[in-house]
């Protein structure tokens, strides 16, 4: 009886306590869940964009000669490391910190009290995700812009130059442009449209690349005695195309991720991104066939990249049909620019100036043409939707200002480096390959070292497999 009473009392106590326990464990609110989803999406997008470094690595390795592949991947690693640290220290504050029309002046080293994040980083106060997620996403963009710079300077640049320029670019040049367009700077005030960075990321990288390669000069053997370009083929097209595809997939973090919120809009942005890339491949391949009567694999890949670069700015502002036009034209523009650049003596192994530079210009301008009234979250509708020439003018102004600034500042840095430490490796290092001289190891030891031991390499001796192409006989 006594035991029964004790048991009954225990059960009653538990039953009475249960509602209390339920109240103590209130589930997450809708706002909490929304924040969690946004944060998850931004982090996933950031990882996708970071993985684009693997795409750049494969693309550059594929377009390089075997003797330089190690230096290419070493450069990718060190640039990612430097971009992350410099952007953390000063770049993020300059780009998104509260400040003036030119630069941010708050939030150095991400050292901001928890409740003051939106006050310190006014440029990103529109998104609710945590500061660390914002930084992770933006630093990936900085790393992409820096990776673009080196596409034109492959196979002959000193490793130290990569390191030193990366510090300046990630710490100052890129963040300034980012602040002007995204961080509340003067171009933000004017309503310039650049949703995910055709100008901020890609045009900036390409202009820095152009400045560098003008001072660097072409690779030995790139131009013949009459000044005609000679094709120096990459050693692995499958790797190059793998790089393109990785970049394409990474762009689903680049463009849709720029919403920095898990909204239905990300699907629309992914759609315009996909259509543009597909059209770009076909546009470039058509140009290749029209010009040379064959379909160049590398050009097809560059067509996809140029189209992705072009759609980066307008991806959230244009209709799907417009994204196809933008991508297709980007393929054409890229091909024509690449031919032009090659002929005027600018050696660009990856076609970065054509794909990222002209793709960026076209994409930024296309905002002023195709932005619909419904989607114009920033600025005015485009010319084709009755918006007049205002938005087109703002886009052009932004291109000239940002492109010009990045080109001149990069030129100054590279000029200083050329006058002090030199930016180009010695001729025998270039001919033997950067792998062994800059890094002490071969990228493909079993292949290149064996060849070297058989006496087919060596200092002061040019033994590179270069070939003349139809370019040289046009």
């Amino acid at each position, binding site marked *: 009886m006594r035991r029964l009473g004790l048991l009954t009392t225990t059960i009653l106590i538990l039953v009475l306590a249960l509602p209390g326990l339920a109240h103590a464990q209130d589930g997450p609110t809708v706002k909490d869940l929304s924040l969690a989803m946004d944060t998850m999406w931004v982090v996933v997008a950031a990882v996708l964009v970071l993985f684009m470094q693997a795409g750049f690595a494969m693309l550059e390795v594929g377009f390089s000669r075997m003797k330089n592949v190690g230096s290419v991947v070493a450069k990718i690693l060190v640039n990612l490391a430097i971009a992350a640290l410099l952007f953390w220290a000063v770049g993020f504050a300059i780009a998104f910190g509260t400040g003036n029309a030119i630069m941010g002046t708050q939030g150095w080293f991400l050292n901001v009290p928890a409740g003051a994040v939106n006050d310190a980083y006014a440029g990103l106060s529109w998104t609710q995700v945590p500061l660390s997620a914002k930084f992770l996403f933006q630093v990936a963009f900085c790393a992409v812009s820096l990776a673009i710079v080196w596409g034109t300077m492959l196979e002959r640049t000193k490793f130290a130059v990569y390191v030193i320029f990366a510090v300046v670019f990630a710490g100052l040049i890129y963040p300034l442009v980012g602040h002007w367009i995204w961080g509340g700077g003067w171009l933000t005030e004017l309503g310039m449209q650049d949703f995910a960075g055709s100008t901020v990321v890609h045009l900036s990288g390409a202009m820095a690349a152009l400045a560098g390669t003008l*001072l660097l*000069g072409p690779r*030995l*053997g790139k*131009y*013949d*005695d009459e*000044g005609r370009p*000679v094709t120096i083929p990459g050693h692995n097209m499958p790797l190059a195309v793998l790089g393109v595809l990785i970049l394409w997939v990474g762009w689903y973090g680049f463009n849709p991720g720029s919403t920095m919120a898990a909204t239905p809009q990300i699907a629309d942005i992914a759609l315009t991104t996909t259509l543009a890339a597909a059209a770009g491949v076909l546009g470039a391949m058509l140009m290749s066939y029209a010009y040379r009567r064959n379909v160049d694999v590398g050009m097809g890949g560059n067509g996809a990249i140029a189209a992705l670069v072009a759609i980066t700015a307008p991806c959230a502002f244009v209709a799907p049909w417009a994204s196809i036009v933008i991508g297709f034209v980007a393929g054409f523009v890229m091909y024509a620019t690449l031919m032009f650049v090659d002929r005027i003596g600018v050696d660009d192994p990856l076609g970065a100036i054509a794909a990222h530079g002209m793709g960026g210009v076209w994409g930024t301008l296309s905002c002023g043409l195709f932005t619909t009234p419904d989607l114009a979250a920033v600025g005015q509708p485009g010319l084709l939707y009755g918006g007049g020439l205002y938005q087109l003018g703002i886009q052009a102004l932004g291109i000239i200002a940002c492109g010009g600034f990045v080109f001149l500042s990069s030129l100054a840095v590279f*000029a200083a480096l*050329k*006058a*002090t*430490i*030199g*930016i*180009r490796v*010695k*001729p*025998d290092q*270039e001919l033997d390959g950067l792998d062994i001289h800059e890094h002490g190891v071969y990228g493909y030891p079993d292949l290149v070292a064996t060849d070297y031991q058989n006496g087919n390499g*060596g*200092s*002061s*001796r*040019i033994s590179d497999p*270069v070939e003349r192409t139809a370019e040289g006989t046009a």
Partner: protein
Amino acid sequence: MFAAEGPGERVFGVLPRNGVRDEQDGEHLEPPITQATAHNNNVVGVFADRVDLRSGWQGQHVESVSIRDVSAVRIRGLINCTLILEDNAGRQYHLERMALPDARAVKAAVERQKQKASTYE
């Protein structure tokens, strides 16, 4: 492109008229004291007894100037430098768009070798 000229004459953009030879067997095994790349496939290499000026899109043309025949080495410019090599016959060789540290290294190497050559005369 560098140029070889007669006295009082400057010509750009042409291969040298005298002393051009193709690379000899075994020549590549001798490492240069210093070397540098100039514009348009031109490479200058300083050896113990000569200066080699290599040109051609595969580096197939080599013009050698004996150290004793070099009369002067000058550098013009700060960023895209021109290295001017003058021999006793008055010919000038212009190597354009070099980096300043590279041009200085070549000049220093040539002057050092000339000094050594005059020591043992």
